């Protein structure tokens, strides 16, 4: 087990109370596994990703532990976490286009970053150039300022940079959302290639786009309102989902080939509950067509088939 998350609860402190963004989440990512994390905006997926690498000042771990290769991570201690960041856990942020310091040449920026980890730039440079050419960038990128690169090029540069020290876990947060379809495909394929070449042991790919996840991920975890709804291999989630939320979500996605005249798709009525004061029991209850009286109790997240976990009373 490469990554093991046990009953993690991360709340945001606000003046009006705690926003329960991640509420009792447990899962594991195996070595060499690409796990997709899907959900609507505000379901806590980015918070979950962020809490594994850097909690900001408003975030607070209420309970739970995270272990990477059986070593527990000091999530709340931002100083102690520093020695894990970039080396063991790395991140490709949501807006990778603006992640590069605009006043530093790319090469200089990488050099400084490596120095801060006590790694000499010269020793890594051949590998760096090899990986840049792998994603279709020339070594000239290193002597350019970020403004000279296009959005897709910056995205790929950040991907190479984040994975340079072969981290055990890479968190990729919405890295394809702002890209055009053709660039999207290239970036998604690069993720898989990095895994195949062993640059990264495990990956957590966070996105709202299930279609992209189906292309790259081995398993998909669906979150709803701060809780886990369903986890299964990608093929199973897309073809035979069990949780009503996953089912409705997938049936609301248009594909090339589906038309309004022939097959009317429908959305999910209602909106997610507020996380400041979430309802008890199943949080999808108000929008769920199958809801019954048992749903006022919170459904456990259990394994119903090997590798397939669901939190729904109707499925148990």
């Amino acid at each position, binding site marked *: 087990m490469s990554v093991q998350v046990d009953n993690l609860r991360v709340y945001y402190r606000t003046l009006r109370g705690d926003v329960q963004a991640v509420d009792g989440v447990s899962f594991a990512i195996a070595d060499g596994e690409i796990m997709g994390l899907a959900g609507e905006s505000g379901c806590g997926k980015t918070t979950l990703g962020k809490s594994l690498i850097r909690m900001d000042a408003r975030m607070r771990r209420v309970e739970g532990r995270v272990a990477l290769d059986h070593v527990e991570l000091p999530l709340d201690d931002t100083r102690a976490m520093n020695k894990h960041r970039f080396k063991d856990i790395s991140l490709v942020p949501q807006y990778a286009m603006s992640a590069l310091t605009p006043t530093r040449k790319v090469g200089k920026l990488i050099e400084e970053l490596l120095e801060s980890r006590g790694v000499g730039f010269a020793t890594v440079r051949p590998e760096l150039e090899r990986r840049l050419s792998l994603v279709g960038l020339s070594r000239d990128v290193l002597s350019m300022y970020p403004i000279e690169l296009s959005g897709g090029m910056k995205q790929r540069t950040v991907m190479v940079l984040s994975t340079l020290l072969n981290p055990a876990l890479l968190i990729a947060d919405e890295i394809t959302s702002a890209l055009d379809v053709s660039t999207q495909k290239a970036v998604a394929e690069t993720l898989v290639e990095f895994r195949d070449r062993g640059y990264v042991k495990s990956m957590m790919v966070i996105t709202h786009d299930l279609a992209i996840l189906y292309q790259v991920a081995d398993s998909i975890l669906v979150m709803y309102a701060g809780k886990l709804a369903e986890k299964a291999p990608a093929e199973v989630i897309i073809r035979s989902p069990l949780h009503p939320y996953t089912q409705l979500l997938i049936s609301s996605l248009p594909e090339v080939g589906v038309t*309004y005249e022939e097959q009317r798709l429908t959305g999910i009525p209602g*909106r997610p509950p507020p996380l400041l004061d979430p309802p008890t029991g199943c949080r999808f209850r108000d929008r769920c067509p199958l809801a019954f009286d048992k749903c006022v109790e919170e459904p456990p997240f259990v394994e119903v088939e090997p590798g397939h976990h669901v939190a729904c009373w109707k499925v148990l």
Partner: protein
Amino acid sequence: MLTLEQVTKVYKVGTFGGKRLTAVRGVSFEVKPGEVVSLIGESGSGKSTVGRMILRLTPVTEGSITFDGVDVADLKRRRVKGYYREVQGVFQDPFSSYNPIFKVDRVFGMIRSAYFPELSSADWQRKLQASLQDVSLEPAHVLNKYPHQLSGGQLQRLLIARALLLDIKYLVADEIISMLDASTRIDVLNLLGELKARGLGVLFITHDLSLGHYISDTTMILRKGVLVERGPTERVFANPRHPYTQMLLDSVPQLHTKWSGGRSAPADTAEGENGVVPELVEVEPGHFAAS
């Protein structure tokens, strides 16, 4: 009928406008009543510029946009208002389309004072209820609320309701659902379908091929300001003739089929790069592609 004839847009960029950037080059098409036309292109292809020119938000450099035979650029004062009664736009970001300190009623109130000053309160209320009904919103849920109290889907539907108050004939929908969540976006898309059935013409601007395929009758592919393919939606998707369209279709992530092997290399034969607009050739009835 809304018709674009050889429309070109050149922006002045750089210090003191010294450089020229051609955003749209020789684009011609028409939108008929009761038809959804989707304009699909990647970022920077000029698709939003086309929408903005139709709405008179930016002037046309060359060519003409005519609405029922009248050139839109020549309209003056009262006629402009008349034009906006019939053609309206809804844009991508519902959260920034509203003034955050105006309640929703006030947004509608502005329409009333500008276009219907003579209408009695009772008639206005009836009109308002009817247009909210059309976008399937419960008046009690949305009226007398601030924008931050409503969801993105509700806000976007309110903007469509606002356009419907004006008895519009055409709607320019510029990426109206790309900011919405997956569970609500399809409802807004279906709403466009219902409006179409009532005779509204919609120009649906998007970067998402599957959404375009779902809703539109005619599909146009725009690349670097040039139309490379235009035709009935099912023909363009079933039988794409231009290499760029084929490349786009190959790159769309699908839910039930995996990408076929081979890394995508964007074909780099840009038409119109040196000012030459390629001729659209009819490859089958109604289906045109750049040769």
